[in-house]
């Protein structure tokens, strides 16, 4: 076991939590991520592997599928982001890669992102100050890549108007955190 102590994207040793008014923003350092992209001509095989892994069809464009241990977001044509618990899946890329063999390209993405859960009554009031999502149609399992204060983010609806997951570029975790907490203050 190595002796390097990780820090979170916000630079702490523990996850950051902010509650402002009715909403709470929670940093989620314990998510392992890997991208899966079907190889050319292997789309069907890759889809089957995804079904095996998720216990459900691979999410379609703009959708997410939550499962245990693996969940998946669609991030591009024939491309998905797989997530799992970090403690048990730190080597997620290797695990996923071994499942897919040569039918998909797998890339570790865990530390490319900072993950937050934004929760509480009236999450939509915060979201509408942050990004261009049609909240009238943002249902559980919808996932979209959008821009928050010039940062490309993945926003996934877990429970409408109550809980969304925001993933943004890790190096800009501080800027993203500032943007979200500022919006939370605005609507508080």
């Amino acid at each position, binding site marked *: 076991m190595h002796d390097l102590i990780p820090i979170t994207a916000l630079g702490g040793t523990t996850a950051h939590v902010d509650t402002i008014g009715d909403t709470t923003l929670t940093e989620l350092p314990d998510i392992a991520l890997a991208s899966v992209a079907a190889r050319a001509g292997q789309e069907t095989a890759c889809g089957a592997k995804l079904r095996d892994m998720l216990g459900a069809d691979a999410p379609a*464009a703009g959708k997410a599928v939550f499962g245990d241990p693996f969940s998946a977001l669609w991030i*591009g044509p024939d491309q998905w982001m797989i997530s799992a618990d970090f403690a048990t899946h730190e080597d997620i890329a290797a695990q996923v890669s071994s499942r897919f063999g040569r039918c998909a390209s797998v890339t570790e993405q865990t530390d490319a992102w900072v993950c937050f859960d934004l929760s509480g009554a009236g999450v939509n009031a915060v979201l509408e100050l942050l990004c261009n999502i049609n909240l009238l149609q943002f249902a559980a399992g919808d996932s979209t890549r*959008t821009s928050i204060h010039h940062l490309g983010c993945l926003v996934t609806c877990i429970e409408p108007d109550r809980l969304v997951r925001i993933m943004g570029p890790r190096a800009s975790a501080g800027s993203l955190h500032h943007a979200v907490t500022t919006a939370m203050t605005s609507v508080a």
Partner: protein
Amino acid sequence: MIINHPLLGPRDSAEFVYLGAATLMDRPDPDTATAEEWHDYGYLRDNPAGPHRELWFHEGGDRSILIVTRNTTTHEITAVELARTVGART
């Protein structure tokens, strides 16, 4: 503007990067093309006042490059296709 993404539905054009005329996909054959053809490919544009096929990269979205047919006088968009699919077909 709003671009109706074939996979993701209506998306704000601000999420995209404009790459130029769709003729950029018609790269000359490196084995046979003349210098004149390379010049025309690299530098001449129809630049029509009217429908225009053009490439938009969904940088803030799914990274697809779309071929958008858009009227340059009204900005009306009449067709949106995935470049990769169209390119693979032709």
